[in-house]
Structures are given as structure tokens and as C-alpha cells.
């Protein structure tokens, strides 16, 4: 049951950093057969200023395509998008000065050092003289690449490359920052550091961040709001809490017990119950409402309850439910 896309009109347009309607994109690739690939099929988003907005979805869902259109790197076939009040097609150049993008699998000129790459792109953003040197120095420190400033790009580790990509994306102090899978393929400890940096960017500077990821955890941790994208369509959007509430995957109650396991099928609100090796797993419509009845039924049936845990659904389950 897809959740309707919440009405953008509730928020005044000036408060929106990004607004898009009916975005379509078809790629025609592969010579000579000209395969057709519909990457986006009518995507609408409304992202308030200062928000971290997550675009979630499996590989090939169209996340990068959507981000590229919003970043003026790709022209949509149909629909429109405005970022910071500027049309992404007609006012692209003015927009480019105010947004930036970092992707997890970014690539830069191999022979240039980390520092040289930042100076090169810094110049492209119109930075010059001492101002540019200060900026590059600050970003090298902020993104923790200072010790590797003189290392050529192709000798940097994946984590450092990702951090360099982030540093490059901050050169122009963007008002809107696009992050395309910023932690893909990283060791967990490094991924955590990058997530901290993303969170602090919003905290310190109020940047609007659009984050594409297929790690649900990452989105849940960082984003105010997420949209589920699959096969070029947005299936649902809202805050993680809203989505969990609206798309009831049910709460999971896990009970460790001793003695016989009574049949629970008849109990109101119990959607599913499985027992194995002294652990009973119940899916109920609402844990708060049903917990007492459930425990009562167990005791009556002669079971001794040793441990009870109520597990909230995570975004992953919400997504699986949606994708069904």
C-alpha cells in the first residue's frame, strides 16, 4: 500500500530548497540495438531548506539519475525541477555556483595530488590567491586528509578518496549538497566518521543535503525525511517514524520461555507466531496494545516467561513491505 506523496503545498515555496514535478528520464544505450531504459518515471520531490533528505533504493533504482538532474549534469526528458528557486535546465549556470556533489565512487585525475585536485576545482569555482589556499587548507583539515595532501590520487585509499570527494564538494560552500552513496564500500569505522561529518555540516552551516544511499541504517540515522525509489518511481516518502507508522509491518515481540508453547493463533492482533528452541516470535499489529494479553495467554498455557523484547521495525522492513 503506497503512501501518497505528501502535498508540497503545505510548505511555502520559499522554504523549499528543491522542488520537482513529473521528472522522466529514458536512457537509450547500446549500439546498435538502442536499448531503452526508463530510469525515472514521474518523480516529484519537495525538500525543505536545511533538511537532510534521503533517497533510498536498490541499485539501478534511479537515484544517481535523479541526483544528476538536480545537479544540472543531466537534462530531464519531461518534468521540471527548481533548486534554490532556479530552474535546473534554464538557469543551470547560476545554480552550479551554489550547489555541489560528492559521490562515493568519485574519480579524479590520477596523477594529481589531493591538494592539487582541490586547487584545480577551487579555481573552477572562482577561488583565487590566499583565499583559495586558506580554503583548501581548511578542507584538508576538516576532511582529515591533511597528512596525505601530497599523495597522488591513485595512491589514496578508498576512504581517503571519498573524503577528498567530500572536500571538493565543499569548495564553494554549497547551499545544497548532493551526496551519492558517500560511504559505499567503506570500512564501518570510516563510514561512521563520514556520517558524523555529514551531520555536522548541516548542524554548523544549515546546508540542505540530499543523500542517496542503499544503506537504510545510514538514512535512518541521518535523514529528516526519506523517499523510497524503485524502478524510477517514488513508492513512499516521509520521516522514518512516519513511514514505519503508516506502513505497518507490525511490531515484533520476541519471548524467551520455558515449558509448553501454547497456540496463539486465535489471539486478537496476532498476525504471525513462530516458536523454535524456546524462543517465540510474534508479529502483532501493535505491541503496546497486545503485550499484556500475549503474556497472559502464555502464562495460562503453562509457559514460564524468561525474557521479553519488543522490536521496532526498521526502514529495511518498511521498504521490503513496500516493494512487495
Amino acid at each position, binding site marked *: 500500500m503506497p503512501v501518497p506523496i505528501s502535498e508540497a503545498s503545505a510548505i511555502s515555496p520559499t522554504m523549499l530548497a528543491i522542488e520537482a514535478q513529473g521528472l522522466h528520464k529514458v536512457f537509450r544505450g547500446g549500439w546498435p540495438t538502442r536499448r531503452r531504459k526508463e530510469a525515472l518515471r514521474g518523480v516529484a520531490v519537495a525538500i525543505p531548506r536545511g533538511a537532510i533528505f534521503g533517497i533510498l533504493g536498490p541499485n539501478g533504482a534511479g537515484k544517481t539519475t535523479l541526483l544528476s538532474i538536480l545537479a544540472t*549534469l543531466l537534462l530531464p526528458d519531461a518534468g521540471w525541477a527548481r533548486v534554490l528557486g532556479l530552474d535546473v535546465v534554464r538557469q543551470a549556470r547560476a545554480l552550479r555556483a551554489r550547489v555541489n556533489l560528492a559521490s562515493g565512487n568519485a*574519480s579524479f585525475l590520477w596523477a594529481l595530488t589531493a591538494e592539487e585536485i582541490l586547487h584545480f576545482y577551487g579555481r573552477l569555482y572562482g577561488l583565487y590567491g590566499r583565499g583559495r589556499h586558506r580554503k583548501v587548507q581548511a578542507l584538508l583539515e576538516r576532511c582529515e586528509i591533511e597528512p596525505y595532501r601530497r599523495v597522488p590520487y591513485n595512491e589514496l585509499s578508498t576512504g581517503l578518496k571519498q573524503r577528498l570527494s567530500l572536500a571538493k564538494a565543499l569548495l564553494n560552500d554549497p547551499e545544497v549538497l548532493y551526496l551519492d552513496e558517500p560511504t559505499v564500500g567503506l570500512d564501518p569505522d570510516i563510514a561512521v566518521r563520514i556520517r558524523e561529518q555529514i551531520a555536522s555540516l548541516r548542524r554548523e552551516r544549515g546546508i540542505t543535503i540530499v543523500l542517496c544511499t542503499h544503506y537504510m541504517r545510514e538514512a535512518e540515522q541521518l535523514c529528516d525525511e526519506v523517499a523510497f525509489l524503485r524502478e524510477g518511481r517514488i513508492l513512499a516518502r516521509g520521516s522514518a517514524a512516519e513511514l514505519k507508522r503508516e506502513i505497518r509491518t507490525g511490531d515484533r515481540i520476541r519471548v524467551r520461555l520455558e515449558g509448553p508453547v501454547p497456540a496463539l493463533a486465535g489471539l486478537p492482533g496476532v498476525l504471525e507466531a513462530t516458536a523454535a528452541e524456546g524462543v517465540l516470535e510474534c508479529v502483532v499489529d501493535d505491541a503496546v496494545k497486545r503485550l499484556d494479553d500475549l503474556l497472559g495467554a502464555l502464562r495460562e498455557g503453562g509457559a514460564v516467561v524468561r525474557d521479553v523484547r519488543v522490536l521496532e521495525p526498521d526502514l529495511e522492513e518498511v521498504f521490503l513491505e513496500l516493494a512487495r
Partner: protein
Amino acid sequence: MSWRAEAARYWAFVAKNAIMTRRSVFMLFEVLFWPCVWLVSVGLLTRFLELRQEMVAYVLVGVISMSIIQVCHLDVAFALLLDLWAKSMKHQFLAPIHQGHLLLGHWLMGVLRGIGVFALLAVFSAHAFGFDFLRAGVGPLALFLLGLFLNAAAIGVVVCILILQYGHRAEVAAWSLVSLMMLVCGIYYPVTLLPGAVRWLAELLPLTYFLEAFRAYYGFQPLYAHSLLKGYALTAAYLVGLLVLFQWGLNRARRTGLLLKLSE
């Protein structure tokens, strides 16, 4: 917008190509090794054939011109070629620059490098083969070199347009286009030797006229009147057309997604 910010955008590409040259053996070879090998081998050939001094000048003008064009056009082609290889294409087009920054910036580096190559080859051939590169005077020489640089810019832009259209498949254009010009424009021989259809092609290419005009100073009767003027007029027309095509190609690459495909 401050002029220093604007200047930084042009300079970005000059600085990038300068660093890349220092870093990569490949580029150093392109700039120093091949032009020298070519000049020495052809110079010695003229000795062996016991050519008159004017003939030696005729051939060496051709060789030096081609070296300059080869080096300079490569810098312009690097506007896309380096990023094509590194798969980093999208980042420069994400920045607030226009094609002027990109192409002019790269061309500036090409001109600097071209002047370097010219100085090297001219001085060397003066010593080794008695070639008097200043015979025409400084003014005509400068006009000739400028013509070559603009020619190189045009070829470089053609390579870029092909890359925007065909991606990796266009790489070969970077080296083969210049060689084709060598065949057609009369590097070693007057274009009158060419068969009809090919000669017609030669007359469409500005390099033919620039060579004609410059060789006139070495006692060769020009085939065409106002060669220099024709050369510049043709070059200007081509450049305008090519810049329009480049912009069109870039838009097309934004539409088809090639720009993304060439990144990451």
C-alpha cells in the same frame, strides 16, 4: 564578478596541464621526444638527398609546423581527454564554467607549449641544418605561428566534439586527425601533387594557406593569392562553427547521459 575569479577559471586548466606534463612521462615524450626525433630524421634525410637550402627550408617549415600543431592541439583535446581517461568528466561540468574557460584555458597552455617546441626546434634546426627561421621577419613569423595555434585549437575542438559524441571510441581521433592533415595540407610537398579530389580538400583546410604564405618568404611562389588572409578567414569560420557544435555536443551529452557515463 571579480576579474580575478574569472582569471582563476582560465588559469585552472593551464595549471592542470602544466602539472600533468611534469608528472607524466607520456606527456614529456609527446612534447620533447617525438618532435626532436622527427626533426632530426627528416633533417638528415634532406642532407642525404642533397637538397638545396630552399628545399631544406621548405621541408623543415612543414615538420616544425606539424610538431607545433600536434603539441598544441593535444592540449586543447586534453580539455576532455584527460578526464575521459580518469573517468572524472562530470566534475568540471558541475562547476560554474563555460566552454570559453575550458577551451581557451587549455589552448593557452597549448600556445605556451607550442612556443616552447618552436623555439627548441627552430634553434636546433638553425644549428644543425642551417635553417633560417627568421628570414620572414618577426611579424610574419608571429602571424604564421598564431595561425598554427588557431589551427591546432580547431583540431583540438574537433577531437572534443567527437569525444562528446562517441566517448572512448573517439580517442584515436586525437592522433589520427593531425596525421591526416599532414597528408593533405602539403607538409613535405606542394598540394599541386595531390589528385583532384584531395587537393580540393586541401583547399578547404587553413593550414594549406598558412604554409603557402610562410614558404613564400623562402622563395616559393604561392599558389593562392592572399594566402594568409584566406587562412585566417577559414580558421575563424571553422572556429565559430566548431564552438557552436561543441556547445551542441555538450548539451547532447547532458541529454543522453554520456557525460555521466564518462564519469565513474
